[in-house]
C-alpha cells in the first residue's frame, strides 16, 4: 500500500469552502502515491489550484486545454516509455465531468482505444461549475442548472446521465470504477489499484458541489453518502469488463437526497411533483437491479 500520509495537494488553493472536488483530489493523490505526473483539463480544479504564479501541486502537473487531457497524457506516456521512465513514474489525469464526458470525449475514447498506460479520474460534480453551473452530459435527470432551468414548461435537465464508465468498459479498459469522496478509504484504494493496473483505467468520483447543487458546505460528505445510500450513485469496480465489487447499502428512497439540494427544489415546491420524483426513483431502482446494491 502506498504511503497515505503524503500531501501532494497543498492547502491555500482557492476552492469554495466545502468543495467536494478539492477533498477528492487530496484523497486521489494519496491513493496515487509519489512519482505521479498529473494532467488536468481546464475546469474548476485547474483554476482554483494554479493561478500563476501560485500552485497547489507538489507533484509534476500540466494543463493544456479543456478537451485534450487524455491526448496530452498519451504523449507523456509515449515519452516516458521511450525514455525508460514509465516503470518509475505514473500518469494520472484528474478532470471534471464536462471536460471528460462532453468536450473531451473524442480524446478519451482515442486514448483508451490505443491502450496507453495511464489512469483517468473524473471528479463528477454533475455540471459545468467553473463557468456558473451549466448542464453537462453528466448532469442528473431533473437537476436545475443555469442552462437546464426548471420553469413553467421545464422540470430541469430532461436527460439521464451519460454512462461514461460503461462506455469505457466497452473500450476494453482493464479497470473501471466509480467512487465518491464521501468514502475516502474506498476512493484511495481504487485509485491505487487503477494506478497499478497496466493500461488505461478510469474512475468516476462523485464530488458534491455545494455552490452548484445548493447545500451547506459543511454537509458535503453527508450529501455524498446520501447519494450512495439512495442508489443514485452506485459504487462499483469492473475488472476486465466484469463487476468485481459493489458497495452494498440498506437503501432509502431518493426523496431525502433530492430535498437536501436546491437543484431539485422545484420537484417539491410549490407542490410535490410525484411523477418526476417517481422517474428519479426508477433510475435508482434500475441501478440497484444492474449492480446489486441492496443488502439482502
Amino acid at each position: 500500500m502506498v504511503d497515505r500520509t503524503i500531501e501532494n495537494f497543498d492547502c491555500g488553493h482557492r476552492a469554495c469552502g466545502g468543495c467536494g472536488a478539492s477533498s477528492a483530489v487530496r484523497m486521489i493523490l494519496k491513493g496515487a502515491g509519489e512519482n505521479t505526473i498529473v494532467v488536468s483539463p481546464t475546469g474548476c480544479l485547474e483554476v482554483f489550484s494554479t493561478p500563476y504564479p501560485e500552485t497547489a501541486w507538489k507533484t509534476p502537473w500540466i494543463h493544456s486545454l479543456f478537451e485534450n487531457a487524455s491526448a496530452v497524457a498519451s504523449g507523456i506516456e509515449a515519452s516516458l516509455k521511450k525514455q525508460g521512465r514509465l516503470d518509475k513514474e505514473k500518469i494520472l489525469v484528474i478532470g471534471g465531468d464536462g471536460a471528460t464526458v462532453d468536450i473531451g470525449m473524442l480524446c478519451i475514447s482515442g486514448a483508451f482505444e490505443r491502450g496507453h498506460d495511464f489512469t483517468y479520474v473524473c471528479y463528477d460534480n454533475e455540471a459545468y461549475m467553473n463557468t456558473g453551473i451549466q448542464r453537462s452530459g453528466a448532469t442528473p435527470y431533473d437537476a436545475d442548472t443555469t442552462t437546464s432551468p426548471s420553469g413553467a414548461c421545464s422540470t430541469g435537465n430532461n436527460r439521464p446521465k451519460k454512462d461514461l464508465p460503461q462506455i469505457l468498459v466497452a473500450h476494453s479498459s482493464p479497470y473501471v470504477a466509480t467512487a465518491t469522496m464521501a468514502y475516502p478509504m474506498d476512493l484511495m484504494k481504487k485509485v491505487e489499484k487503477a494506478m497499478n493496473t497496466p493500461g488505461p483505467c478510469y474512475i468516476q468520483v462523485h464530488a458534491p458541489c455545494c455552490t452548484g447543487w445548493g447545500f451547506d458546505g459543511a454537509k458535503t460528505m453527508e450529501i455524498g453518502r446520501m447519494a450512495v445510500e439512495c442508489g443514485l450513485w452506485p459504487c462499483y469496480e469492473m475488472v476486465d469488463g466484469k463487476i468485481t465489487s459493489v458497495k452494498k447499502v440498506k437503501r432509502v428512497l431518493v426523496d431525502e437526497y433530492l430535498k437536501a439540494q436546491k437543484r431539485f427544489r422545484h420537484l417539491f415546491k410549490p407542490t410535490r411533483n410525484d411523477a418526476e420524483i417517481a422517474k428519479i426513483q426508477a433510475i435508482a431502482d434500475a441501478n440497484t437491479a444492474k449492480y446489486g446494491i441492496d443488502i439482502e
Partner: protein
Amino acid sequence: MTLQIMEGSIAVAETVRLCRPQVISAYPITPQTHIVEGLASIVADGRLDAEYICVESEFSALSACIGASAAGSRVYSATTSQGLALMAEVVFNSAGMRLPIVMGIANRAISAPLSIWNDQQDSIMMRDSGWLQFYAEDNQEAVDLHILSYKICEDHNILLPAFVCFDGFILSHVFEPVDIPSQEEVDEFLGPFTPYQKLNVKDPISFGMYATPEYYLEFRYEHDQAVHRAADAMRKYGKAFGEKFGRDYSELVEGYRLEDADIAIVAMGSICGTTKDAIDEMRAEGKKVGLLKIRCFRPFPAADIAKALAHVNTVAVLDKNISLGAKGAVAIEIKEACYGSGIPVYDYILGLGGRDVRKKDIKKIVELAEKGSGDMFYGLREELL
C-alpha cells in the same frame, strides 16, 4: 553530397528520421499522408527508435506532442488544411506553452468548398499563433528547413514551435533530386534534445497555469520577443547549416536577379521556382525583373524586405491566400514593410485551390504591375462569375 531522386514526402520522412524524434504523433490527411506513412514504415522497420502514436484526430495529434515535449522528448507531427484548422486551439496553446515542436505542413486549401489541392491558406491562417513559419521553394529546402527548425526551436533563448511549409502535391508528391544528409552530420548539427524544463517527479513544476490580467500581457510580450529573436537564431544557425551542409540559410529572404531590378516579385514557396524561370525569360527580353523570396514568414523580416526592395520602382506580391474582405496576407505585410518608401505594392491573389500558375501568368502579372493594375484576383474565369 549525394543527390537522390525521391518524392518530397519521402525526403521529408527520411529527414525527420535523421532528426531522431522520440515521439511522432500524426493523423493522416491528403496531401500529407506519404510523410506519416513513410515515418510509420521507418519506425516499423526499426530505422528510428520512436513511439509512433496513431491518434484519432489532428486535435489529439498536436495535443500528444504537447505532452511528449513537456515530458522531455523531441517530437514531430505533420498535417495540412482541415487538419490544421481542427488543431487550431492546440496550435495557439502549444506556442504559448513554449514547446519546441516541429510540424510539417503540406500546404492545402481550406474548405468550403472542399479542395485537396494546394494554396497556403492553411498555414497563413495560423500566422498569429506564435509558431515560426518557414516556406520551402523545393524539396531540398523542405528537407533542410526541418533540420534547421529543430535547431532554432530548441535553443533555450527561443523555445518555440515551427511549421515547415511546403506546397501540397507541387512539392509533397513531386520527385526531385535531393541531398539527404548523413546521420552523423545531422547528429553533429542538432545534438540530443535538452529540454529547458520538463515534467519530472524529482523536480515537480506546474506547466500551463492560467494568468490573471496582472500577468497575461507580459506572457504575450515575452512570447512576441521570442518570435522576434528567432530571426537572429535563423541567421546564426542558417549560417552554421551552410558551413556544415553546403547550403546557406542565413537569409530570411532571398533575392533572385533582384540587385538591378526595376520590378520585384515577392512570393513564398514553390511558386518561386516558376517565377525564377519566368524572370530569366523576361530578362532575355530586356525586362529588369527580380524576385524576393520570403523563406521566413514568422518572424516577419520587415526590415530585411524593406532593404531588399529599396531600389525597385514596383512590387508585385503573389499571394496564395486571401484574408477575405482585406487582401492577401503577404501583401498586407509587404505594404507595411514598404510604407513611406513611395514604392507601389500590388497584390495578386492567385493559385487558390490548386489553380495552376504558369510562367506566362507571372509575365502577365508583371505587365499588369507595370500598368499600375493590381490588388486583384488573378486568373479568374470570367465566364463563371
